[in-house]
């Protein structure tokens, strides 16, 4: 329970005890005073916290610079090292992200100054690990997931394409069958038309013959 909370609880106990010896105004004055003290304490806590964080960060930078057997420590800023040394000596662990940032920065600077492949690899490796590898692992994992999803989508697309091709082939076959059937019907209709034309011609011939006979028999009219 914090200080502010203990004070509040005490005040409540006092109030609940029904102390009548103090006047209301006196109580309110005491409360205000206590609240101011609480706020002051809270500001001190914040200040101490900020300072602690700064010192831990400095310790982290110091530890990062002094990592790898102090290799390349000279590349880190001297004032950062001094503060960080004291903080580390005071017991701050110094293992936060500034540690890694300082380490990578040192390695990168060392590699650039030396112009050596090893240093570059070390720096690059560290950088890669800090900035690329770890996030890269995540990206790789995401990429694998993306690839898997893409493969899945590709497989579905291939399946759909196959199905579409099968449908197209079936439609083509059906269309060809329909064309053949229509051609067959056309040929049958043409044959029927020719038959009908022949029949019509024959009937017209018969009509002509009958008309001629009708005229022929008129020779007997009136006889």
């Amino acid at each position, binding site marked *: 329970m914090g200080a502010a909370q203990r004070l509040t609880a005490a005040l409540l106990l006092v109030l609940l005890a029904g102390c009548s010896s103090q006047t209301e105004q006196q109580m309110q004055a005491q409360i205000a005073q206590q609240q101011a003290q609480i706020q002051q304490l809270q500001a001190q806590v914040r200040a101490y916290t900020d300072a602690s964080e700064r010192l831990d960060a400095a310790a982290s930078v110091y530890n990062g610079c002094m990592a790898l057997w102090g290799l390349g420590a000279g590349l880190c800023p001297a004032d950062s090292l001094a503060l960080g040394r004291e903080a580390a000596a005071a017991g701050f662990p110094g293992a936060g992200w500034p540690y890694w940032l300082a380490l990578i920065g040192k390695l990168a600077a060392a590699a650039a100054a030396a112009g050596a492949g090893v240093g570059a690899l070390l720096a690059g490796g560290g950088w890669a690990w800090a900035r690329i590898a770890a996030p890269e692992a995540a990206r790789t994992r995401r990429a694998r997931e993306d690839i898997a999803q893409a493969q899945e989508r590709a497989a579905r697309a291939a399946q759909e394409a196959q199905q579409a091709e099968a449908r197209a082939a079936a439609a083509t076959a059906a269309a060809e069958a329909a064309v053949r059937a229509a051609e067959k019907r056309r040929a049958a209709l043409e044959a029927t038309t020719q038959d009908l034309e022949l029949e019509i011609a024959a009937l017209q011939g018969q009509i002509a013959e009958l008309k001629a006979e009708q005229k*022929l028999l008129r*020779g007997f009219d009136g006889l």
Partner: protein
Amino acid sequence: MTDAAQRLAQARQRLAAAGQSPRRVGKDRALAALDWVYRWGWSTPAVIDALTGAKRRGLCAKLVQAGLLVETKTAAGRILHDLPQKIVTLSDAGLAEVERRRVDDLMDYSTNPYKVNQAMLRHDLLVQKATQRSLQSGGIKGFLTPRELARKSTADSKQADALWIMPDSRRAGVEVELTAKWDRRLDEFVWRIWQSMTEQNRAMDLCIISSDSPAIIARYKKAFAAGQTVHTWRKDQQSKWHIDRAYTVPDWLPDRMRWVQLKD
């Protein structure tokens, strides 16, 4: 100029335009009349005048007057109204005139008018009249008379009363039946007409049977019906007729028959 004179003048103009003259037309009509009598054996003034298309009678009289035709009174013409009172035959001069214009189809013609079978006058006259009318109306383009058919007839085919040539070149046999046939004669009548229209002997394409008797027409229709039996006959050594064979009237024969009811 009177109307008649005007019409005559117009007719002469038309003839002239056709390269003809009234004299030429008159001569052609006369020759056509003489040829008709030659082909049929005899005729009547009414048929002769109608044949040439003359609107007025007179051509036959002119030919008789010219000695080319001989006019003879008939035995029953004055009694029976449907018999001609007179018939005409060719005189020797008329025969000579006809024969000198024929190429190779000469027939044996007797100028004796009494050789004309007067029992067949009404029958033969009906055939002549029907032929003349069909010819004039364009129902036929030609014909053959019994005398001409007699030269071409075969044993089994029927010699018709006349053979009409239709504009489409089909040939129609003409039969005028005024008395009923029975038994053998009816069989022979049916058989010979049937044989005249077979594929092997297409003497005629159809046959017209005319009669003034509805009963005759009904009987003959039945005899020509498909499926009916028709017999052929043969004569034995004693000249007696016997049924030789039986045949069944084919389905196509009734379709080739035409029936005409003459007015009574």
